[in-house]
């Protein structure tokens, strides 16, 4: 009998408010692999919006709340590359060596693992594809690509799905233009970036847009819907995998 | 305050500011750039020994990629090809160093079974540029020089301007012809340093030439002959071959 492993799930505030099904799908998917994902209700925001806006003091206060919400020494599986990047790499900037909580923060950071990375590297899962043949594109948040280096994890997971053909849209590696408050402060530049991203997606023949970052999806989905050229709406990797890898009822 | 005092002041102020903070940033540990034996995977600093034939091949490949005209052969063969080249390019007036280097003189004056109408005149760079601009800018269609060495890795000719072959000889005329011997070819810049007395004695000017002049400043469209020579022709004399 396989022992149950315990992990924490960090949902992210974007998923909390806009894509809660992704959180449920992630927990359900993990359960299939004997992973019990605990969701501490004391979790809120990782602090990134304040941090990237130049308010490290406020970010630090919020970070302390997150650190306190995950007391057990379990891995913290994060449903976003950019939130994972914040907690894994930037909390050390918020809590330098001479800070009283620096050791705690450091230990917390070491437990952070992004969702696709957890599935691929830690669980080393094998996926079985029960779905129909489809074309899909993978959008990776910039920090997943550059900070967390987890792009290849999502790519490898999708490559296991034999009926999913992954397509690369033009300028795939370019930012979608969200950048947190950037999209609000520099709306025209952000708008140009997300429109270009959508144009590139529309030019492919994909039926699915998958991402490990729902903040990007909030941005891209909103623009796709505004443009009305395609009914395509992106979803979190957890939702896509759960849907594809669920055996069909006879 | 006089300008001299103000300028002196600038030096003092700048250096004082730099002397105040004694921060040393950590270096990356992967390489020590002073260690010449360090075999890093570095295309620009290859210390891997390759055979001479490979070096020549690489040099030619790189030069041709950069749009240079390259000929490899024995001395006689190169000489014939050079005369053919001068005819094809219709070089009226060929500029050379002064006195004409012995090897170039030999190449240009040895008779050929074919009558060669070009070059019609050969002008050695006999005077300081101030008295020679007319020949350099208006009359000279091409110039022929030796070079110190060639670097295979990057397809580069190393020229050492001198009283005999001045800087502008390889710069102003629209065609630059270089005579090179296979034994002058080194693998890399580091290998070149091992063969010279640099850095302890530096010449006033060293020029590294890796192709004809070019630019892509107009809509990223490549065009040759922006300011320097439009044509670079390299005659590599394989001095291991017997005549």
């Amino acid at each position: 009998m396989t022992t149950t492993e315990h992990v924490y799930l960090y949902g992210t505030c974007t998923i909390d408010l806009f894509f809660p099904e992704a959180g449920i799908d992630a927990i359900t998917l993990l359960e299939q692999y004997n992973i019990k994902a605990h969701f501490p209700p004391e979790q809120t925001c990782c602090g990134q919006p304040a941090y990237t806006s130049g308010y490290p003091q406020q970010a630090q206060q919020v970070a302390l709340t997150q650190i306190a919400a995950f007391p057990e020494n379990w891995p913290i599986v994060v449903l976003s590359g950019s939130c994972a990047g914040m907690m894994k790499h930037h909390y050390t900037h918020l809590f330098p060596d001479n800070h009283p909580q620096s050791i705690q923060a450091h230990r917390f950071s070491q437990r952070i693992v992004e969702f696709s990375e957890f599935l691929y590297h830690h669980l080393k899962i094998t996926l079985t594809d029960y779905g129909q043949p489809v074309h899909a594109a993978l959008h990776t948040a910039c920090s997943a690509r550059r900070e967390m280096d987890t792009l290849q994890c999502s790519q490898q997971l999708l490559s296991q799905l034999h009926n999913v053909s992954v397509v690369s849209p033009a300028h795939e590696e370019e930012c979608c233009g969200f950048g947190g408050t950037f999209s609000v402060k520099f709306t025209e530049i952000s708008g140009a970036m997300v429109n270009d991203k959508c144009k590139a997606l529309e030019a492919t023949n994909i039926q699915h847009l998958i991402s490990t970052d729902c903040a990007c999806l909030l941005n891209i989905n909103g623009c796709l819907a505004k443009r009305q050229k395609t009914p395509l709406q992106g979803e979190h990797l957890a939702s896509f995998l759960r849907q594809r890898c669920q055996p069909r009822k006879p | 305050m006089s300008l001299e005092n103000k300028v002196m002041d600038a030096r003092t102020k700048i250096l004082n500011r730099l002397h105040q903070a004694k921060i040393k940033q950590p270096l990356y540990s992967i390489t020590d750039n002073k260690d010449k034996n360090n075999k890093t995977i570095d295309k620009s600093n290859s210390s891997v020994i390759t055979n001479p034939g490979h070096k020549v091949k690489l040099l030619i490949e790189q030069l041709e990629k950069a749009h240079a005209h390259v000929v490899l052969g024995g001395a006689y063969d190169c000489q014939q090809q050079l005369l053919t080249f001068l005819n094809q390019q219709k070089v009226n007036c060929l500029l050379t160093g002064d006195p004409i280097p012995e090897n170039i003189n030999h190449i240009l004056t040895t008779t050929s079974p074919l009558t060669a109408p070009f070059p019609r005149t050969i002008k050695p760079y006999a005077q300081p540029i101030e008295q020679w601009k007319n020949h350099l800018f208006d009359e000279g269609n091409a110039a022929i020089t030796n070079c110190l060495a060639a670097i295979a890795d990057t397809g580069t000719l190393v020229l050492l301007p001198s009283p005999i072959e001045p800087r502008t000889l390889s710069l102003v005329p629209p065609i630059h012809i270089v005579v090179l011997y296979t034994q002058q070819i080194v693998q890399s810049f580091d290998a070149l340093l091992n063969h010279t007395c640099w850095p302890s004695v530096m010449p006033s000017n060293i020029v590294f030439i890796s192709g004809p002049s070019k630019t892509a400043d107009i809509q990223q469209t490549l065009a040759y002959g922006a300011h320097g020579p439009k044509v670079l022709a390299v005659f590599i004399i394989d001095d291991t071959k017997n005549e």
Partner: protein
Amino acid sequence: MPSSPFEMKASSVLQNEELQHSYRNAMDYLIKRRQQQFNDPLEWQTLRQKGTSIKTAALNDLPQLLLQLEAKLINNGIQVHWAETPDEANILITRLIKETTSSNPDLSPAPVVKGKTMVSEEIHLNQYLAQQGIPCLETDMGEFIVQLAKETPSHIIMPAIHKNKAEIAQLFKEHISGIYQDDVDILIQQARQYLRQCFENATVGISGVNFAVAETGTLVLVENEGNGRMSTTLPQTHIALMGIEKVIASLTDLPPLLSLLTRSATGQSITTYINMISGPRRKGEKDGPEKVHVILLDNGRSKLWQDASLRDTLRCIRCGACMNHCPVYSRVGGHSYGTTYPGPIGKILAPQLETQDNAADLPFASSLCGACGEVCPVNIPIPQLLLRWRQEATQQYQTNHCNHTTIPQQPTPITGLKYSRGQHLIWKTWSWINCHPKLYYFMTYLVTKWRILLPRQLGGWTLYRTPPRPASSTLHQRLKNK
């Protein structure tokens, strides 16, 4: 509505389809060229770390290296001058030009010829010389085009990247040939002939310096066209202008740095010409300048150097890779920034070097995608430095953020960055909510319950997107009810 100078300029570029097309093509070209050079990740990382170490070591020893460089240059017969400010540099250069021209009263006055140097743009040299009645002619093709158009360079490597062939053909028709034709080869030959006359008669040539080798007192200049060699060889006086951060220790430092520069900038393994100047014309030589002057320019660099994290900025070798890969630059173009150096490197230099109001905007005008930091050949942590400037603007930069310094850092005096009380209040409130999980739960519960009441127009967001629609219940609620 765009409000700042940056936003307004950016807006007009964003709405110009032709410019968008020009920029996209140009950036794609440069990105592809660089990618072809660095297709081996291990080789790239090794070379990059080598280059970073070389520059870091040189900056660690900056005062000693500058003194060594000065001594060696003087020993080689090169005259060395120091300038703290743009004004000082301009006054010096004017004096040196006048010394040359006044010593040759018989020669008809010819314009000063200039090779490509971004440092001269920094000090607004051309404008200053024009005010002194000294015409200064740009000789790099891109700079020449931009000068004819009475504009400034929009990219540090390809100054006329924003101009298409037709626009350039029109410029040449007006200023050079009188005939419109847009064959690129012919355009280049026209410029060549025109500038050749200027080279032939020029008495003063000005250039920048890519690297200055302290060990040997050598100025290293790279180029593809040959105008740099022309400008530094033909005139009797050569004035080389360089930022103090350009000094490197030894000759053997050059190959990796040159490799990083040329491959990152234009995707070339080497440029057509590398010119190493270690002195003026020597006895017996028939050409070369009789006088060579080097001006060591500070202009805020020593202040940057004093700060352990801002010092990283001085590693910059001016390759332009950061701006080529920047999704913001590739859409708004170089002129929108209103700074000498555009793009990501410009954003982190601007608060220190520039005094315009839009320096305030620039560190925020980034999605922090990290593409710039990823391609920087000398590992400048540009996104981190952008964050640093943002924290300076909010007055929250703390001295203990620099983990590798042992001395306290004073916040660097910066120009243009503004503190906003309103913003501060917003983030304080946000923090309060997120530090109180029950309050957060309640607020998010309200958002889901009242989602129908949320406004359809949400400022700039909804110009390009449908309004974000909260779910019927939050993840917190769903798991609580499970």
